Every structure is written in structure tokens, then in C-alpha cells.
């Protein structure tokens, strides 16, 4: 289902209730089960008894409708970008992005590849980067802890930034996606 309306700019919420909401958001992070690169392999052990992400309230969801977090797990190919944009925009607010690995930061070992994006936050608002090639599950959990702290402090505002600066992101996205056929915003 598409929506052709541009998103409304979200207001600023403060106060005790918002703090409670942020506590709930930080302790219940549902992740879209979607892997873009080799880092998806490192996410699997998180569910096992050795690392057990469920103890932090983190769970995998099979659909972006129900998720809060999108993990860009490693290199992002130019062809995948369109799908990632669709998935990200279908996630309901508030939503967060964790980017794994060197590839999302500066292209990593694919820095001069013709089909891999180099700097992810030109195209999508990244809340937390986790460095490494690839980051171990411990590092991913550390990234989640950082995201949880940012949410509690009210600093994980990437989704607001995306809506407020949609033109900037669209311009960059359209440079990569030459056969652009998406509406202004889709959920």
C-alpha cells in the first residue's frame, strides 16, 4: 500500500510521560528481520542461549509493520537501497537504524566498488554505528545498549531528522536509484 502524502513534521514532546514512553521504547526494541549484507550472519547468534538478546527486550519481527529498529547489516548494494527505503518508511514512528560494519561507515573493503554505497547516513538517518568487519555479536549488543541509552535520553531522533529533511535524503537517494518509481513517502 502506498501513501502519496508527504509526512507531517513531528512535534517536540517533553515531560514525565515522554520519559516513561522512552523507557518503554528503550526496553522493547523489535528488530525487522532483514539482512542486507554479510553482517546478517552475525545477528543470528544474538537469539541463541550464548548471547540471548531477549533479556534486553530485543526481539525479531518478521514484518516492518511491527518493528522499531532496522539493522543495516553490512554493505548496502545500490540495488538494495530501494528495498531498504521501502522497509524503513513502512516502520511506524518512532523508529531507529543501527548500521553494522565498516562498509556502512565509509565503504570498508568495498570503498571503490561500483555497486556499493559508501556513507550510509547520506541516504538514511543512522542512529548508531557499530564498527568492525564484521562486528561480533558482543559488539552488536554494545550497539544496542548505546541505542537504548540514546532513546532513554531522548537523543535517538533520526526518524524526525529524516522527515524534516526529506528533500535532502530524497535527492541523495535519487542519485543512486536511477529508475525511481516510489511515491513521495510510502507506508
Amino acid at each position, binding site marked *: 500500500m502506498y501513501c502519496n502524502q508527504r509526512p507531517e513534521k513531528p512535534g517536540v514532546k517533553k515531560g514525565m510521560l515522554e520519559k516513561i514512553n522512552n523507557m518503554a521504547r528503550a526496553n522493547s526494541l523489535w528488530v525487522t528481520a532483514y539482512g542486507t549484507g554479510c553482517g546478517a550472519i552475525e545477528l543470528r547468534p544474538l537469539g541463541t542461549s550464548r548471547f540471548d538478546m531477549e533479556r534486553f527486550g530485543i526481539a525479531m519481527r518478521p514484518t516492518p509493520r511491527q518493528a522499531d529498529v532496522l539493522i543495516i547489516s553490512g554493505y548496502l548494494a545500490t540495488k538494495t537501497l530501494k528495498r531498504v527505503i521501502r522497509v524503513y518508511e513502512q516502520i511506524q514512528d*518512532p523508529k531507529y537504524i543501527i548500521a553494522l560494519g565498516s562498509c556502512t561507515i565509509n565503504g570498508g573493503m568495498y570503498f571503490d566498488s561500483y555497486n556499493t554505497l559508501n556513507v550510509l547516513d547520506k541516504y538514511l538517518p543512522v542512529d548508531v554505528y557499530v564498527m568492525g568487519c564484521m562486528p561480533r555479536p558482543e559488539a552488536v549488543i554494545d550497539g544496542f545498549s548505546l541505542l537504548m541509552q540514546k532513546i532513554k535520553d531522548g537523543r535517538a531522533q533520526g526518524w524526525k531528522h529524516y522527515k524534516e529533511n526529506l528533500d535532502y535524503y530524497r535527492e541523495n537517494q535519487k542519485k543512486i536509484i536511477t529508475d525511481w518509481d516510489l511515491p513521495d513517502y510510502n507506508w
Partner: protein
Amino acid sequence: MGNIVSIVLTILGALSWGLLLGGISRTVTARIHGRMGPRVTQNFIDMWKLFKKTSSIHHGGMFWMAPMFRITGAICVLLMVPLVIGNSITYNMSFAGDIFLVIYIMFFGCLGMALGAGNSGHPYAVIAVSRGLAQMSSYELSFSIAVVAIAVGLKTFRIEGIVEAQQAGILSWNIFRFPFASAGALIAFLPMQMAYPFGIVLAPQEIPIGPPTEYSSRFLSFMFSGRALFGTAKLILFVSLLFGGASNWISLLVKTFLLYMYPVVVSSVFPRFRTEQSIRFLWFVPTSLALVDLIRVML
């Protein structure tokens, strides 16, 4: 006035107890897997978070109404079963209907969910709904035969009457007086709770989460609360039918807790049936068991 207060407290209490039991079951499942598991209050946190997310996706009228159907069905079942024997305030609206009305309303809530999921148009939801309805028609059969066997044996269809007939000690509980019907009903309880090996509706490896695939945010929050309420209502119904009801609040909590742990433990150690295996099993095994007691009381 006292009745209205009792109804509100019953609903809130059942919701909290259902969510807490869900949290405990997640922890127990995690411990069986050798994991630490989430905190027991995780379901409350999840529900709160979902309620505060934006809801910009919807797919039509029935999609909106489905969570309401489910909650309505759950509340009706909850209010028609007496909670604590002898405490007339907690009988709520149990005068209003007998056991057959309760079984009908249990179906009503699930049917609303099925219509809403069908309205969402997602193929996985539609597959799950067709599986769920097929499975429901098979376990309802054994459950209904078990209930008829008990009702005929005790010569009453009123839930209060069934509870009152079990007050002469543990051996007067229906699970001992009607062992085969109880076994049939308890097997039917597993698919009712969507427990493995009958968990073909949610089946995460095939149809990721089944009916609520398209549901998000507040819709999903309402779904969760409906499920928690429905779960508690079914537990109280089974305690009233088979385990002598509850003579006080502690007895109610202990009995519902132990009964809730039965599908959790079974679910943790069993793999999942395929759809046709599940339905074939439910048509034959629990139905035959329930029929044994029905024939016994008819003779």
C-alpha cells in the same frame, strides 16, 4: 454499583494476570532453552510501547473492528464464568448464560480476529486464518463433547452448577469423575492456547506470525490485550470445568498459574505438527477420549 466495580476490577485484574503469565511463560521458555530470558514484566512494556507508536496503516473497517471483537469476546467469556465460589460479587454476569453460550462466544472472538486478518489482505494472514479455522473446528468438537459429557453427567448446563457439584473434595473434581472427557478437553486446550505441537496458526518459520502480520502499533497492542484477557478467561473456564473452581483468590491464582504452565512446558519441548497432522490428531485422539466418557454417562 458494586457489580460495575467488580466487572471493571475483573477485567483489569484478568488483563494484568494474563500479561504477567505471558511474561512468566517467556522466562520459563527461555530457561528451558538455557537462556536468561526477558523480565517478567516484558509484556507490559511491549504493550505500552506499541500503544505509543503511530498507527498510519489500516486496511478497512473489519481491520479496525477485529481487535475490538476479540476483546469483546474475551470480556464476555470472562464475565460469564464465576471467579471465586461463594463470593457472589465475583460472579459478575454468570447468571446470563450457560456453558454453551460461553463456547459460542469463545468462537465469536476468534472469528472476529479471522475476519480482520482476512481484511488485511496479506497472504500469510489469510493462510493462517484458514489454518486456524480448520483447527478450531477440530478441537471445538472434542472440547464440546467433553463439556456435554460433563454437563450430562452432572445434569446441569450452568457453570455455577458445574462448579458447585465439585465441592465435596478433590476426588469430586471433574478431572477425576470424568477422566477421559477431561483428557480430551485438556488436549483441546493446547491448540486453544496456540501451543506446540498445534502451533500451526502463528508458525513463525512458515508464515512469519500469521493473522496479525499487518497489524501494527495500537492495533497490535489491542490484539495483545485481547489475547491476555482471552487466555485468562479460558484458564478460569477450565479451572471451573475440571478443577473444582476456586474457593478463594489464592486458589484461583495458583490453579490458573499451574494450568497456564501446562501448555508452556509442552510447547517448549515439542516440534510443530503440519496442518493435516494436527487436524487428524485432534479429530481422532481427544474426540475419541471425550466420546468414551459421553457414552459412559449416557449408559
